[in-house]
């Protein structure tokens, strides 16, 4: 068999290469070909895409996040720590062989599609797998939300928010919009607004079908696509919204999976994936969605929307605080994703008013998600001495990551000191979430940070919320870090003092005797 592997370790000078060598040796001994990409400090030569394509399986012996992991999507994968590969490379190779023999896990035919790399261990917890299916659907849906949401918002900006001033553009009647576009006038901002709005609206129409289709795809591979998409479209038709889409995705996926596992005569087997499975599963999904669960789900959806829009004042602020705290709790982990998915799903509700609660929820979630990286960046600037060199470097990047709503920017800080960083993050993010609600900001785009500021309703309020949340989180983390001392930081500080003394001495010493360690590069111990 042919395998590709990625190795990495915290320091990047020893285990990365030892694991690579050990895997190559063990592979050769067992008669397999193993090609390794060492993601260490000597730089890494990326694997040739042709080699990856030819590989039967993938081995991750990495203690750091695998770079460009999506290159390996869809292949049977074993994920072990670097230490396991050094200590027991033959065992790891054996695991990889078993993984390949267990069969392909997801559709490699879809190319670089971010199919969640299914762990070999098919006994992975049900919760984990449900989350992976769900996140697959959501990850395919988000570009539609982004394109559609931003186009719609731009449509309002260009054509004017007060749509009643534009007789040709009526939100409820698609026909008039189409007419406005048919008589397209290149100099009329109303025409452009109508065009943007209509295009964005069309993109939005795909949200629920794409969500359902790709949930089913994650479960059942390609046979799931048809029942998923059709079920999602039916959910839209009967007004069951994203709840209906979720139901349709899971129904379609499991039906397709079940049918594709039927034992059928050899002659029929060829037409199963292209005809029989899509046909039967789609019919059953249609029956269930139209006749059985569509109406109750539609009622539930209406109830949820009514409840959200009925929230006001203190309740709305509390919702913002809760979602904010969730965003800050694990910085891109499952809890964060639940809050984020809730907000994005809200955007897909049809016919939302300009200041709908769903848009306010989205604004609160984005503001909260920006706080943690910004707060860490701020803290490294105002209290340098509490942070290691590496953290101060990370702090510089965290400004940009935070401003772009990438909560993960705070992970380097949380990973080394979770007990101090996460409480600060939760408090600050919750404050930002609550403030956005209190200040009535709205947001139509699912992502983008300050770069989508023009699309934010009451942008000043949004900024105030982000800034206050950031200051609060930074203050908390500084306060917590001031309790007790960090041995690494203390050691670095002494080293700095010594280096400074050396540099002063060097300045006065004769030229040509410069010590080789004049640079202030971070000691890469983390």
């Amino acid at each position, binding site marked *: 068999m042919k395998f590709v592997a990625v190795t990495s370790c*915290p*320091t*990047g*000078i*020893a*285990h*990365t*290469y*030892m694991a*690579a*060598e*050990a895997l190559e*040796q063990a592979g050769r001994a067992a008669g397999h070909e193993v090609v390794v990409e*060492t993601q*260490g*400090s*000597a*730089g890494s030569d990326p694997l040739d895409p042709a080699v990856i394509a030819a590989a039967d399986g993938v081995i991750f012996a990495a*203690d750091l996040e695998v770079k460009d992991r999506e290159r390996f999507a869809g292949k049977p994968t074993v994920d072990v720590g670097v*230490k396991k590969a*050094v*200590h*027991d490379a033959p065992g790891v190779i054996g695991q990889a062989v078993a993984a390949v023999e267990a069969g392909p896990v997801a559709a490699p035919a879809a190319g670089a599609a971010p199919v969640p790399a299914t762990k070999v261990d098919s006994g992975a917890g049900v919760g984990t797998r449900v989350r992976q299916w769900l996140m697959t659907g959501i990850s395919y849906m988000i570009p539609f939300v982004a394109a559609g949401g931003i186009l719609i918002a731009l449509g309002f900006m260009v054509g004017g928010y007060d749509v009643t001033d534009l007789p040709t553009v009526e939100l409820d009647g698609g026909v008039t919009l189409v007419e406005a576009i048919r008589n397209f006038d290149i100099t009329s901002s109303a025409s452009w607004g109508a065009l943007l709005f209509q295009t964005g609206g069309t993109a939005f129409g795909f949200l629920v079908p794409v969500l359902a289709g790709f949930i089913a795809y994650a479960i059942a591979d390609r046979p799931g696509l048809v029942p998923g998409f059709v079920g999602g479209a039916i959910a839209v038709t009967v007004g069951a919204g994203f709840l209906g889409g979720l139901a349709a995705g899971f129904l379609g996926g499991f039906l397709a999976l079940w049918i594709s596992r039927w034992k059928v005569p050899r002659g029929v087997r060829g037409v199963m994936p292209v005809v029989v499975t899509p046909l039967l599963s789609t019919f059953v999904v249609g029956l269930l969605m139209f006749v059985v669960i569509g109406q109750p789900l539609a009622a539930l959806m209406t109830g949820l929307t009514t409840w959200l829009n009925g929230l006001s004042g203190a309740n709305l602020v509390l919702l913002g605080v809760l979602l904010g705290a969730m965003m800050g709790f694990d910085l891109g982990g499952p809890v964060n994703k639940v809050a984020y998915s809730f907000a994005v799903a809200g955007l897909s509700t049809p016919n939302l008013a300009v200041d709908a609660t769903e848009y306010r929820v989205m604004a609160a979630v984005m503001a909260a998600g920006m706080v943690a990286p910004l707060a860490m960046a701020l803290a490294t600037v105002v209290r340098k001495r509490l942070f290691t060199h590496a953290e101060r470097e990370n702090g510089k990047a965290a400004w940009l990551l935070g401003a772009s709503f990438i909560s993960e920017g705070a992970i380097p800080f949380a990973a080394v000191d979770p007990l101090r960083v996460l409480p600060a993050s939760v408090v600050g993010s919750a404050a930002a979430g609550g403030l956005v609600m209190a200040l009535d900001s709205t947001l139509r785009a699912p992502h983008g940070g300050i770069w989508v500021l023009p699309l934010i309703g009451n942008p000043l309020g949004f900024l105030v919320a982000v800034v206050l949340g950031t200051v609060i989180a930074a203050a908390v983390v500084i306060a917590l870090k001031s309790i007790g001392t960090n*041995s*690494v930081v203390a*050691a670095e500080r*002494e*080293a700095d003092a*010594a*280096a400074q003394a*050396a540099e002063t001495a060097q300045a006065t010493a004769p030229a040509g005797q410069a*010590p*080789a*360690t004049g*640079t*202030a*590069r*971070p*000691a*890469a*111990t*983390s």
Partner: protein
Amino acid sequence: MSTPLITPELVALDIEASDRDAATRQLVELLAAAGRVTDAEGFLADVRAREAQMATGMPGGVGLPHARSEHVTVPTLAVGRVPAGVDFGAPDGPATLLFLIAAPASGDGDHLKILASLARRLVHPSFRDSLRSAPDAETVAEIVTREVVPS
């Protein structure tokens, strides 16, 4: 390479140590004496920090303390033999052969490639056995210099 990865002065054939910290310290002192690190205590702290993340003991009686550190002037390997053994957290017992790898924080590509190639050699039992049975420090240094060539 102007400066060799290892010289006979960086080999200790008979280390006696009660724990891994003491053993590492003896090797770090060799580095300091050879002028390969500017601040022995500072470098030791970096190695300790790395060791605290994940023990570096390997099966086969090998301990592999290492760090990238701004106190290191040139990429260096120090080898120590510990006849009585010292625990490095390996699953199969104490380490009798120690490799201390010192990498500069701002190493260029060539330096780091040498260390990568060293790490790859360490996996081979034949390489480790030849170091265990080498009669003197000169031979140890010579074996390493001969075997470790940048790939």
